[in-house]
């Protein structure tokens, strides 16, 4: 048992940790409503002018769409590929099993900048275009290890005997997969989809190298913009992302439960 005093201190500590992680986001959001023409905290007056400014900048709006398309594409494909890879790695033993497992998880240990540079050289060498498709491919490579992890964890918890029971009752392998295995690993697949989506939407390092004027994701756009300008536009763009994330969280909590999604409950 934890003594009462320690329990109170633990509570204070937990609150401090929460403030520490949420405060920067809160500051940005508050700054975005400033009436000033420069970034300052606390804002001298409140206004929506930087949100209006955002709506007037087509390149930012376009980047939001490109980011969304890239994130949806990358997370769906990575989750599908991750599921197939996880099945192979979890359900079958074969020669080179360990090697493949390490190979699939290797991108985790590769810094984004180095990966981006390598990708840029590769694309240039073979004269490949830098467009939305190559951006999606880059993001699949970055997010695939996470997809494999999420689905593997779900798959390990599905007993082989349950699949065997289905087979003994007359279901072939394909039917067993669709109607027994898949429903049971669905939470893991949804978690993989959500997590890889966020990861892709957030990705800067590698995307910096692959981005081109026609395919510039939002984080890259902000990065490039902030290099030249220092006005509150970036705070309103960032705040919009925070609002989107909040809405997504609320939807997930209402439908699935955030805790269940990540296997905490």
């Amino acid at each position, binding site marked *: 048992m934890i003594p009462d005093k320690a329990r109170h201190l633990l509570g204070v500590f937990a609150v401090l940790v929460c403030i520490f992680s949420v405060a920067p986001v809160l500051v940005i959001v508050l700054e975005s409503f400033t009436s000033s023409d420069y970034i300052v905290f606390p804002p001298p007056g409140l206004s929506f002018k930087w949100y209006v400014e955002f709506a007037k900048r087509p390149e930012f709006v376009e980047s939001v769409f490109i980011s969304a398309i890239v994130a949806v594409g990358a997370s769906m494909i990575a989750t599908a590929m991750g599921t197939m890879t996880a099945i192979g790695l979890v359900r079958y033993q074969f020669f080179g099993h360990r090697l493949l497992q390490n190979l699939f998880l290797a991108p985790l240990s590769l810094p984004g900048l180095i990966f981006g540079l390598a990708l840029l050289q590769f694309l240039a060498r073979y004269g490949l275009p830098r467009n939305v498709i190559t951006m999606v491919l880059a993001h699949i490579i970055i997010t695939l290890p996470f997809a494999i992890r999420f689905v593997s964890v779900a798959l390990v918890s599905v007993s082989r005997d349950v699949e065997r029971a289905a087979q*003994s009752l007359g279901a072939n392998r394909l039917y067993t997969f669709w109607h027994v295995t898949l429903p049971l690993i669905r939470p893991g697949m949804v978690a993989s989809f959500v997590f890889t989506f966020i990861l892709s939407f957030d990705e800067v390092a590698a995307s910096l190298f692959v981005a081109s004027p026609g395919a510039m994701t939002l984080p890259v756009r902000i990065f490039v913009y902030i290099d030249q300008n220092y006005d509150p536009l970036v705070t309103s763009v960032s705040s919009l992302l925070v609002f989107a994330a909040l809405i997504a969280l609320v939807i997930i909590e209402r439908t699935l439960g955030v805790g269940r999604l990540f296997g905490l409950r």
Partner: protein
Amino acid sequence: MATVEINDVTKKYNGIVAVSGLSLRISHGEFVALLGPSGCGKTTTLQMLAGFIEPTTGEILVDSCSVRGVPPHKRNIGVVFQSYALFPHLNVFDNVGFGLKMRGIAPADIAKRVKRALGIVQLSSLDNRYPRELSGGQQQRVALARAIVIEPAVLLLDEPLSNLDANLREQMRFEIREIQKRVGITTVFVTHDQNEAMAAADRLVVMSKGEIRQVGTAQEIYETPVDPFVARFIGQANLLRGKVTDVRGDEAELGLPSGQRIVARNRGGATVGQAAVLALRPEDLHLASQVQAGMNNITGKLSRLNYLGSYINAELRSGELSIAITVPRGGTIGREGEEIFAYWPPTAGVLLQE
């Protein structure tokens, strides 16, 4: 219903032999228990019958047809797993109806047959529950209903009772037996629990290290085990090791290391000079305060007495030997630490060759 024939089946995993040269015939509607310590190959045998794994060599015939290469979903088998393996995302009705759906049976018929199967295992009225809402015993019955509703050619039970508590286990043992007789399915039951096997099965197959040691009814195996392993594995046995010193008619004289000679029925045709073991059940022995004429007698010190209600477990120490004796309530027992005689008739026990 079907006959099952296992012909000289061997299974190796990376050179390690799990089952070796196993042959067994199971007739229509028979209930056979594969019994043995863990690692004896009984589960491997079951999985080969189910088609989850293929034998390395040898053949399995169901109704005289080889099932080599036939995948599990085409074998028409019902399997009850140790973990029950119910589908967690389906309710009881859909769990039990799964196999019928796979066979393309009309929904109305499925409903009828599922209802009947749930009636047999006494679980009507629970069709809408999910597996996680059921107790272990209920899950076990759902698993059984799911396996028998498809009217399989062969029913395979893989330690189906080991996750239940003792009372429920005893009850389910008889229920499984009764249901099996009522529906008359050829059944193979894998267990490491001899009581379970004896209570449920028509015939027991005692296995060890991938091989069959003995096949027979519970009575045959208990009363005439073929070797010391079977004698010890099924029930309790006192093993008196020695050398055959004389053979007279159907009786053999066994010289124990202590120099004492005992007489036993010579069933196995032992010859003079051979090493042999007399296997005696604890209830074959009796206690007395003096030597009994015409009996085998061993003297020793009563080292332990355990009162267990309907009977008393006694332990006699005689030199190197420790002998377990079951004394019925009210029988002669003496006191702990007392010098006493254990005696048994020459007809008791089984003389085995080492």
